[in-house]
């Protein structure tokens, strides 16, 4: 059963339909909330997002995107409402500023065990500018296609691509910067 049908059944009071929809989308909503709003706030944000869905069941318009994108849009608003900040400011998406961020010689991952790499990447994601972090969360962690991510981020698809490209370059550079002599190897 697709999400739109589940929503119809939720409108009719079907708790199982709600449980199914919640199970399908909670991880994506949680990821966005945790990475964009902070791990400590993620639980509350997830709850607020699905409460908002229940309160505004008639607001969803299938012609404007998927239920998943709709929920992430609500999540985005919740995150920025909580942080009392505007959505990520537009960055310079046209300039060629990534060259300085490319990895230096050598592989930044060579000296890191897998677990360490994961933790380093997680920490590095947290330090990215919000607009780049958002692109990583939506496209890499939630595996959204560019068009859906663009709809959630309310920007052109090309902007999503460029932010993602720069985010990857920044992550590589950040990980390379901590490599020399700073990491214990566990193999």
């Amino acid at each position, binding site marked *: 059963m697709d999400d739109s049908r589940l929503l119809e059944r*939720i409108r009719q*009071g079907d*708790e199982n339909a*709600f*449980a199914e929809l*919640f*199970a399908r989308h*909670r*991880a994506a*909503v*949680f*990821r966005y909330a*945790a*990475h964009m709003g902070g*791990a400590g706030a*993620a*639980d509350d944000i*997830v*709850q607020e997002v*699905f*409460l908002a869905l*229940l*309160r505004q069941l008639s607001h969803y318009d299938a012609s404007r995107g998927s239920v998943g994108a709709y929920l992430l849009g609500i999540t985005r608003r919740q995150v920025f409402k909580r942080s009392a900040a505007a959505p990520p400011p537009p960055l310079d998406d046209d300039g060629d500023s990534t060259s300085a961020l490319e*990895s230096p010689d050598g*592989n*930044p*991952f060579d000296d890191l065990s*897998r677990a360490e*790499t*994961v933790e*380093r*990447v*997680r920490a590095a*994601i947290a330090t990215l500018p919000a607009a780049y972090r958002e692109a*990583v969360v939506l496209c*890499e*962690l*939630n*595996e959204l296609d560019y068009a859906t991510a663009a709809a959630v981020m309310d920007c052109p698809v090309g902007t999503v691509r460029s932010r993602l490209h720069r985010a*990857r370059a920044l*992550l*590589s550079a950040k990980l390379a910067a901590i490599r020399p002599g700073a990491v214990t190897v566990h193999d």
Partner: protein
Amino acid sequence: MTDDLDRLQRAFRAIALDDAADAERAARRIEPALLAEMRARRSPERPRSISRIVGLAMAAALVGGLAAPVWIVTRGARPPRAEAPNVAAPPVEITTSFLPLAYSAMPLTDARVVRLEVPRTALAAFGLTPIDAVETTRTGTVLADVLVGDDGLARAVRFVRAARAPGVTP
């Protein structure tokens, strides 16, 4: 560089899986609250006492004669306060029934009564003839209790006069 990106991708996948596990843990706490909210929203108990009271008040107003040029005295609508015997009793108020306003048909979940001074001509708008029983203020207005919903829209109004002394019939 491709190798870098491959490892980065693998790290992304691992983080996504970790997050999914965290989300599942969070869901155990959140889901019962959400289902409770869902039940509450479709419960027939939701339009509770206040809307029922408002409905009764409106029905009373309609049945009681919206166009009647007389006041329907509802003495004792308020329960007497159990004050200490040596404290002066509050003045008794005489009110009309609640009269429905333009938004009276809109559902509401909560409401409060706001006391206002309104022009004396407001009485005529409800088919009430200002007679001696209606006491105007010094500014020529009359007192009204307006029932305001939690959405800020006024649902009903009743007019009020304060008796000169407890137990005095106008």
